[in-house]
């Protein structure tokens, strides 16, 4: 067999090759059978995720919107055009859209060469580097904000060296966004690029195409949907950016999400916040629909090969130069902010030392910001994130299992629905939790479960996106083979699916853990003052004046970064063949 197909790649689609008898008529016959029992099973599997999203997402969001738009028992939809045409709101909308577009363009510009290098070149330390560039993506936005503040802000590295400050300019936000999303492009585009068979290009060249034209006519069309999907993902993340803009934007710059936060938490103007939430909801819905469409196209008929076989050492000065410049950009863009963060955390008023870290150990040293020693936030965060991971795995795993079988429009809609929490205002969700889940039978306001539930909401999309491609790549006939050998449906899942997706499950768990750890927008509302999480504690320190507070913020950020990085490096060791969608 010339094209040795790695286990679990898209080339083994259930309805794909059927070997020598692959005529159109019979290819259809080997597809998964559709029978009513299957539909019932799918519905049963979907019940838990549907209930989860209904209670902990739709209900709180609806509650907030209702609270804002309904007064004295009447709907006030007139508020919508009123708010949307307010010049201040128009400014926010405009800024949100253009900074997201600019961030996306900048990210693509900087990360696409990186995607190529990671896909096609083999060089020592590649695995470690891939883990390192992914660290920012799972870093809490608050940490990213503080890192860039430490680099570009008042008293930051550039300020000290050359007197340059960028924290008041939009560049700080854009650069932080590139830093944050570099890995999205490298992993999504590079992951597919590495699996494209280079012989396709060679075949085009044998037919007389130049190197450039072969790339343009063969590789680019195969890659385009992945680039589009990555771009839309980056757009989504930057459009809804909160922590980064909250910290770096100062009073001048606000995204919709930041505006929602200000209206809700500071100005207590719920009607405006509700309208803004709806606007964001609509925009995100549009982006997600576009994303779902590109992803579906990407799952089309591509002949994929084992990524390990397509990479080779760079040849010639041009390729070495490309590798060198990509590594330099990665070092400058990714490593510098992280290094500065660590440096600032160690650099106290009395020179270098662990003063900031020591101060974290008692509540008194935190200057009255906390009821408890800030270091306890580490324990809180780990506990919450662990519970959130379990919830996300159960909910996301069931959803992925239900979505494995390709089916009609309804299921595809469910697929897109699962992505919504990624783009919906976390602030709205968090505040919605407080408003909606405060009366029996669901009085959770005083319960610690509230935080992991909100965090799981963000984790679920990652679990689904990581598991689904792998589950779908499992050849359906393997399940049939097990059934014919006497395995019941449940047993089939345990014996065939689970072992094949075990690694993907671990990766999903890691992602869910990291994003839960870093969740800020919702947690800031619902975490109790005596049980702060790490990102909340960092934000509180940053909100206070004083050098010690700043140092403690940096110290906590460093701790948070190290925890995230550790879970990511562990992930890199169990990477699946398919890198999923992220």
């Amino acid at each position, binding site marked *: 067999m010339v094209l040795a197909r790695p286990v679990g790649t898209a080339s083994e689609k259930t309805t794909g090759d059927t070997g020598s008898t*692959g005529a159109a008529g019979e290819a259809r*016959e080997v597809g998964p059978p559709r029978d009513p029992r299957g539909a019932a099973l799918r519905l049963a599997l979907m019940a838990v995720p549907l209930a989860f999203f209904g209670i902990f997402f739709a209900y709180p969001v609806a509650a907030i919107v209702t609270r804002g738009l309904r007064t004295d028992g009447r709907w006030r939809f007139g508020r919508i055009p009123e708010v949307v045409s307010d010049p201040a709101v128009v400014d926010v909308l405009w800024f949100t859209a253009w900074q997201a577009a600019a961030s996306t363009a900048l990210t693509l510009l900087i990360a696409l060469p990186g995607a190529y290098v990671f896909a096609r070149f083999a060089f020592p330390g590649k695995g470690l580097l891939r883990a390192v560039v992914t660290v920012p993506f799972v870093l809490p936005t608050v940490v990213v904000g503080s890192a860039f503040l430490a680099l570009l802000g008042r008293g930051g590295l550039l300020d000290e060296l050359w007197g340059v400050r960028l924290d008041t300019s939009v560049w700080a936000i854009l650069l932080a966004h590139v830093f944050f999303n570099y890995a999205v492009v490298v992993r999504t585009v590079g992951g597919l690029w590495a699996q494209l068979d280079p012989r396709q290009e060679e075949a085009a060249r044998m037919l007389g195409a130049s190197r450039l034209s072969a790339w343009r006519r063969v590789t680019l069309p195969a890659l385009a949907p992945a680039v589009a999907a990555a771009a839309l993902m980056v757009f989504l993340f930057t459009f809804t950016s909160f922590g980064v803009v909250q910290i770096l934007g100062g009073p001048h710059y606000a995204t919709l999400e930041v505006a929602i936060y200000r209206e809700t938490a500071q100005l207590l103007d719920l009607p405006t916040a509700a309208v803004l939430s709806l606007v964001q909801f609509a925009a995100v819905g549009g982006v997600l629909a576009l994303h779902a469409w590109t992803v579906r196209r990407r799952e089309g008929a591509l002949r994929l090969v084992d990524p390990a076989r397509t990479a080779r050492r760079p040849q010639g000065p041009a390729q070495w130069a490309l590798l060198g410049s990509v590594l330099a950009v990665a070092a400058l863009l990714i490593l510098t902010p992280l290094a500065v963060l660590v440096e600032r955390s160690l650099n106290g008023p009395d020179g270098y030392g662990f003063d900031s870290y020591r101060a974290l150990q008692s509540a008194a040293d935190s200057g009255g910001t906390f009821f408890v020693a800030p270091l306890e936030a580490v324990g809180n965060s780990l506990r919450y994130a662990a519970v959130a991971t379990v919830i996300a795995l159960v909910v996301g795993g069931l959803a992925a299992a239900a979505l494995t079988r390709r089916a009609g429009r309804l299921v595809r809609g469910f697929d897109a629905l699962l992505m919504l929490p990624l783009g919906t205002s976390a602030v709205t969700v968090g505040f919605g939790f407080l408003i909606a889940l405060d009366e029996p039978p669901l009085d959770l306001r005083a319960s610690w479960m509230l935080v992991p539930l909100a965090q799981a909401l963000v984790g679920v999309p990652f679990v689904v996106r990581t598991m689904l491609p792998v589950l779908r790549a499992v050849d359906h006939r393997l399940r*049939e083979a097990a059934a014919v*050998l006497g395995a019941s449906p449940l047993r089939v899942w345990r014996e065939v699916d689970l072992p094949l997706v075990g690694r993907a499950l671990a990766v999903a768990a890691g992602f869910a853990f990291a994003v839960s750890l870093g969740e800020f927008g919702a947690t800031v509302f619902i975490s109790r003052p005596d049980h702060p999480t790490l990102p909340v504690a960092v934000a509180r320190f940053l909100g206070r004046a004083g050098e010690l507070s700043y140092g403690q913020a940096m110290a906590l950020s460093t701790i948070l970064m190290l925890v995230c990085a550790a879970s990511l490096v562990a992930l890199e060791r169990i990477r699946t063949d398919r890198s999923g969608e992220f």
Partner: protein
Amino acid sequence: MALLRCDGVSVRFGRHDALDAVDLAVAEHETVCVLGPSGSGKSTLLRVVAGLQRADAGRVWLADRDQTGVPAHRRGVGLMFQDHQLFPQRDVGGNVAFGLRMRRTGRTETERTVAELLDLVGLPGAQRRAVDSLSGGEQQRVALARALAPRPRLLMLDEPLGQLDRGLRERLVVELRELFGRLGTTVLAVTHDQGEAFALADRVVVMDRGRIAQSGTPLEVWQRPVSEFVARFLGFDNVVGATVRDGVAETPWGRLPVPPGTRPGACRLLVRPAGVRLTGPREGLECTVAARTFRGDHVALVLRPSDSDAPRLEASCALRDAPGTGERVGAAFEAAEVVVLERDG
């Protein structure tokens, strides 16, 4: 007693009939081979019997039990998939033992059975090998051992030797036939390769577009294909329209002898290549040799009749008698090799 009986089984995919009212019976210890081209519905038939595909109409009976609503894992039949579908995450032993584990067979018995089966298929001691380290032929043998392990009452094989090279295939067919005879297994196999079907089967069932075109022993099917479809599928191309009168058929090739008792009237006739005898150019039908193909023990000839309205004719002859391309020869016909075909629907 028929172990397997299909009564009017139909399956539709959209507007396409994959199976159209198929009736089929397989007796205990019998090996039946379903033969047909791609898309004739033969794999669908196996999937219906296995319980992997619901029939839109008709019933499947196993040992006189109606299987409607019985899920695949409770039917107790074995199915060897076309491309084996070995579980990649398990080693050879784990694959073969799978069906036994599903039946909660004890550990020692499982190990003994696995070892026996691996001996039987010619891979002794291969338990710990990874399945992706196996060659195509070895995977084939493991898949067979896996399907046999739970002692299914009916073993079904989907293109059992489809992806193997010719030499291996011919050897394995003989081995399989001998093995099934020894074990007394009831087998239902599907293939598109007539050589495989004839070598393996007690009875051959030819399928055409979801329907059974002919059923009989390999010899019956080979000697007396009932329809033009079956004849052409078996590789016979000497088929012409004819009118039978007084024990002789009028054809574009001239007057052909027909077997005694042939009904008069219009029909289609098959002349097997062996029934075309070469003579001198002035005797029989005058032809030119258009092509000759060396087939090892004989030479296949394509003859172009001088009368340009007559279709080309295939003949076979021994190597030393074979005329060269472009030579002019005569063709005579033997009644024993002339078959009257049913009209195809």
